[in-house]
């Protein structure tokens, strides 16, 4: 009998600890599949951050380093500067990347570090039980904005992809979602584009994934997916913010340098 689907080698056999309906599982899988399909699994170092994915290193089967809250881009900088011919990516949530780690992400991008940031935006702090994040929508109820986020009191959501795409060192920035098969395929393409940009040594690349958090949003998984489409996408439009002109088909691997 023909095998039509099987687990990817890019993931270990450890079962995910993520909540039902959370998108981390899908995102992990498309990153892992991309590493295998691109033949970079054994040449990649991932950097885990602080949040629900603090132990993503137990799932990805590549080498990994766990970073302090928000510091993943700085840690990745140290790794990549040491291992110039390897692929280095960070995996960060919105609290990690868009709040405590804003300095690190902005400057890694500004320096044009040849790393990739996978940024998972679910508009809430997941791990610590649903506090307001910098990406929380106006009016959104969280445990620290129990009356709904009020702009006059708690300010406005940060559109990270738009912000980062303003920096010259950021070469490829795209925002995707995972609401259906077509979007998942598109997200996977974005992951591979980001890796290709890094392989070619062009500069900093980032993919922002709009993601659900049914547990902290207080919604059923399907309902959460609908809420993401209806509420999040208007605030965080999908699309490529930087690197539209890159000819990905002709992006060769950067010249091999001695280790």
């Amino acid at each position, binding site marked *: 009998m023909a095998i039509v689907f099987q687990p990817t080698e890019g993931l270990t056999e450890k079962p995910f600890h993520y909540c039902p309906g959370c998108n981390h599982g899908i995102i992990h899988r498309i990153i892992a599949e991309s590493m295998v399909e691109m033949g970079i699994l054994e040449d990649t*170092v991932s950097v885990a951050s602080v949040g629900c994915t603090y132990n993503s290193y137990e799932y990805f089967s590549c080498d990994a380093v766990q970073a302090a809250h928000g510091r993943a881009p700085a*840690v990745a900088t140290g790794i990549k500067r040491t291992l110039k011919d390897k692929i280095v990516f960070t995996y960060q949530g919105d609290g990690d990347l868009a709040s405590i780690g804003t300095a*690190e992400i902005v400057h890694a991008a500004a320096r044009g570090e040849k790393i990739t940031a996978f940024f998972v935006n679910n508009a809430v702090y997941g791990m610590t039980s649903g506090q307001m994040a910098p990406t929380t929508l106006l009016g959104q109820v969280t445990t620290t904005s129990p009356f709904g986020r009020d702009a006059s009191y708690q300010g406005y959501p940060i559109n990270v992809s738009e912000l980062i795409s303003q920096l010259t060192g950021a070469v490829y920035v795209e925002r995707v979602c995972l609401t259906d098969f077509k979007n998942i395929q598109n997200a996977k393409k974005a992951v591979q584009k980001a890796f290709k940009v890094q392989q070619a040594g062009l500069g900093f690349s980032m993919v922002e994934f709009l993601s659900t958090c049914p547990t902290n949003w207080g919604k059923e998984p399907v309902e959460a997916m609908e809420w993401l489409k209806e509420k999040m996408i208007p605030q965080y439009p999908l699309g490529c913010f930087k690197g539209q002109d890159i000819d990905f088909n002709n992006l060769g691997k950067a010249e091999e340098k001695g280790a």
Partner: protein
Amino acid sequence: MAQKRVLMKGNEVIAEAALRAGCRNYFGYPITPQTEVMHYMAKKMVQIGGNFVQAESEVSAINMVYGAAAAGARAMTSSSSPGISLKQEGISYIAGAELPAVAVNIVRAGPGLGGILPSQGDYWQATKGGGHGDYRNLVIAPASVQELYELTVEAFNLADKYRMLVMILGDGTLGQMMEPVAFRDEEPIEKIEKPWAATGRGGRKTHNMITSIYIDPDELEAKNRELQEKYKYIEENEVRYEAYGLEDAEIVITAFSTCSRICKNVIRQAAEQGIKVGMIRPITLWPFPSKVIAEAAARDNVKAFLDIELSAGQMVEDVRLAVEGKKPVHFYGRMGGNLPTQKEILDKIIEIHNDPEGGKV
């Protein structure tokens, strides 16, 4: 043949020593009075093809060190007191993940923004942990530019050997001072394999994971016990100090780094007045040379200790713990960036000579 000696500034010698020790990764952020380390690296590190990154903050700089160390490289950062405070988060993670790294603190006077002149007020921060959790850094306090060179090279060897952060604790005087230094033709670099490093699997069946998180309390306790065993081994094997005149000293001075230099002259002056003074100069501040201090305290000829620091009295607590009340321990310190004069210390010695039990801490 006598080796050629070069006149160099302390901060520059730290950088040169690191390069000679094979360090190819420097991450820093400007702060006085250590900036020359960074200036030297900005030029020389790049010329030899190493990595020099001026980070966006001290927080990022130490995390870049964490990353480079995790990838198996020799890496360092340097800063001064307020900057070292910012690095404490990363230093705790380095301890937890057991990564080899070197951090230099050219201490300035605090607290807060304080001033830019010399101090030893970061002794507690350096030797008692600094960041969160039960951990230690190996802390080395050179007293001359020559020692800055030799001990910085040694710091990289010790970091690799024990997979931990080694801190060079200097001060503004030492960093800014120019002295002749004789470089070796070849450095005693101990090459230590790092099979644990996250370098990309490259054929390895299992993936390496560098982390400091252990959600299971038993696992975390076991990890802590492992760390404590390592620290105990270091306490038994890596204590360094300089001691002299203990055989017939009436008063024993304890002082490290810059203060010990001033005290050496005072000891000669005291001898001219017929007062025998010896000195114990800790070179490793952690592990602390408690044993030699305890032995000195047990000697009949020793009547009192005098601890001299550029602080309100920090190391003196460790001296008192070692002395265990056997002899009086006196203290004299200056703060704010001021150095004690030889006369101030000599006056204190005469005072103790006349009344060993009076005015003790």
